[in-house]
């Protein structure tokens, strides 16, 4: 399995988003907050004439929000016709997956377990493969 992955840092851990799902990586300047929306939704931002829902990946995984990430980068993905910007701590290069995603005995921790499809080997070491659909539906604690 030689899928291309977008390597990024989420909640201080190495993570990867399938590159085929990523339309672009953008730098987010303005976020319009949406009062009343769940915490993992940071707000809306505009990419050209389209509104993107900005998802704070850390919060969506059940962690505390990263205090204003230094690098407001986000991966743009489309799910069911809606565009989302997945806000990550940092976004790196596109790399190759060197293995199929595998489960590890004991899991990766509750948040990670719910929103990832397993661990893949990459050049940079073991990396968790993010399940974007699960991620945008919010943290487990809220879903449950």
């Amino acid at each position, binding site marked *: 399995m030689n899928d291309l992955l977008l390597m990024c840092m989420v909640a201080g851990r190495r993570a990867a988003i399938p590159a085929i799902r990523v339309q672009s990586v953008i730098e987010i300047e303005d976020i319009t907050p949406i009062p009343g929306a769940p915490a993992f939704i940071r707000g809306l931002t505009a990419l050209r004439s*389209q509104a993107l829902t900005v998802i704070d990946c850390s919060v969506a995984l059940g962690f505390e929000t990263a205090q204003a990430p230094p690098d407001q980068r986000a991966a743009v993905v489309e799910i069911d016709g809606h565009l989302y910007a997945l806000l990550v701590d940092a976004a790196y290069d596109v790399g190759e997956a060197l293995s199929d995603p595998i489960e590890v005995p004991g899991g990766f921790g509750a948040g990670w377990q719910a929103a990832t499809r397993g661990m893949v080997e990459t050049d940079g070491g073991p990396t968790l493969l993010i399940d974007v659909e699960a991620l945008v539906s919010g943290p487990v604690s809220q879903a449950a």
Partner: protein
Amino acid sequence: MDDLLADFVAETREMLEASSGEIVAWEADPSDTARLDTIFRFVHTVKGNCGFFDFPQLEKLSHAAEDALSECRSGRREPDRALVSAVLAIIDRIGVMTDSIEAGEECSADGDDDLIAALQPGEITSVVGEPKAAAPQQAEPADGEDDAAPKAARSNGVQRSIRLPTELLDEVMKGVSDMVLARNDLARRLREAGEQPTIDGPFDRLSAILADVRNAITRMRMQRLEHLFGSLPRLVRDLSNELGKQVMVDFEGGEVELDREMVEMVRDPLTHIIRNAIDHGLEGPGERIKADKREIGLLKFAARQSGNRITLTISDDGRGINIERLAAKAVAAGIYSQAEVDAMSQRRKHYLIFEPGLSTADEVSSVSGRGVGMDVVRANIERVGGSIDVASKPGEGTSFYLKLPLTLSIIAALTVGSDGQRYAIPRSYVEEIVFGSSDHIDFAEAGDRRLITFRGKRVPCLSLTEILGTQADDAMDWEASTLVLVRLASDDIFALAVDRVYDHEDVVVKPIAPAIMDTGLYAGTTLLDDGRPMMLLDLPSIAQKHELVNEMRSATRVPEEETAEQRKAQPIMLFTGLDGRRRAVRLELVRRIDTIAREAIDIEGSRVQAVIDGAIYPLAGLEHGELTADRCRLLRLSDGDSEIVYAVREVLDAAELEGEVIPSDADAMIEGVALIDERPVPVIDGHALFARHSGGQRKAPPLSCRLPADSDWARTILEPLVEAAGYRIAGDGDEESDVAIELAEAPAVAAGPARRVIRLRHEPDAPGDGADSIYRYDREALLNALKQARMGETA
């Protein structure tokens, strides 16, 4: 052209294009049976389609080609070059004929027989396939030498159509929306950078082009209502047969266009209304004859466009709505009490038909009366941003009026601010806007519920900050807020307190992610001019969440009824002028209320102007007193063409002008004095106001001024001055200019006719008495002359 025929032409042409490659391949290898099959299918389809239309020539040709090809397919004949050429010639000929059919021309049959003869095996020996194929082309007179030219020539004046996937259209639309946003951004930057004539001109042009393109793109999504109307006669026929009635349908306004999606959205409600009309509205033939009506009932559909809304009227000439029975049903169903029903106006009673759970049908037929009622129709229409109304006369018929927005995605919205952010509210819900500081508003608390008293009604009040959870209610400064009175489809009213109201805007609404939808606060999102997103509030859902939908029902109903009956009275707006006295202005004149900083008002002598959002408006109302506060409240009045602003101290309230306005001669600016709440209030004379103040308006067409044509001085020095004085420079195309400026030294060449002439001389000292000319650098005198010319014109 007939729709079927257009389809036929489009299909034939599509097949021609698709098979052209096959034809060439077949020519290269006549024994290739796969190609042969394709071409056979083509001529076969053309022949088949011809059967529906009366095209004997086309049918004869395709039939002959089909025969020859089928012999080849069955192996009775070997395809050879001559046959290939002959078939190709026929296919070309079909293409030419298709063009003629589309253009509605006759196509000469000359040479058709030769073409058919060429298909015969006997012709094999002669190598005449090619020349013969070419022959009919040449035989056509004046059609040009080659193949392409006649085709192109013919298609002129005929509406060509192509089929496009809707995704592509959406893509283009998105692109144009992006361009508009980029343009807005650029416009803002240009404004900040100040005036730059070299850039502003082309930029304006760009804006105009973009607006046109945007319009055209929007039209692409439009569909004529004919498409919807087209399916109705059949529906009416089936229903009337089933119910044993005779119904005639009449359509009007099929050319009105509506967004494709909107057409689909109204299909079901429309069907339901038709069912109701045929089932309940129209009488059976016997009853109709007894009532002295025509035996056949009439169902009429009329569509009309006004602005960005479509009105669709469905009327029948049946028995009308039996309001007594409707009211009795409403009481029986426990929706209203007898007393409430008795207090209702006729109109309000008719409106009961939209209440859930009511059906006037005593018996349930197979067609209607099964519980899915007009309430669902109303809900569906309102869901797409439309409204529905009904009017009925006993014995004469019923009409339903559907008002629909042109497109699903563009809605009229009010933008409001809360906690530093903007939100949009669909304008259809907005009943009225009042300031929290107004004397007419009382805040009260009943338990945890905050209420406002407005015109004698107690209305629940919510603050937007609390709804959105951005700020606790206790911290709210109610007096400083602006209250938007919201009337829901269920007729429930509540007040929404916001920090401020910005503007009316048409916004393009886009869907939002499910996780945001789940909050129940928002219905969609839209982009502001600067490209930032803005959320559209979902008021019905918010009201539901705060349980406002039922609790105020009985409390609001009766007073509401009164306002409905007073509609005929003229609405006016009460305010206090700068001198503190109460005055009134007719509400139709008031476009909006602005609050601007004192610095934005420019007073110089008798010329008083205010700058609002980059536009200059004449300012009136100062004759009553001085502007004192740092911020001035202004009424923006409009007569439809131009706008002026009127300075006031405070806006009091909207009221009904019931009695007469007693004319007053004392003040020309006063239409008269009216009694409002038993106090005399002067009503401002809109006519006199606009007559006095809108003369120098920028929107008034500028007078034209003709300058000496071949003078550099006039062009570089005079022209800016004249333009600054509010004149338009007359071009060669202008027949007669209002003013002409001539140079005294130049021989009096009549540059063009003009109503007034100003002559300029070179020397400061006039040679004669100097009365007929002005020194060309005497700016004041020149401007005076121009001003006088204008006064003369406008007086």
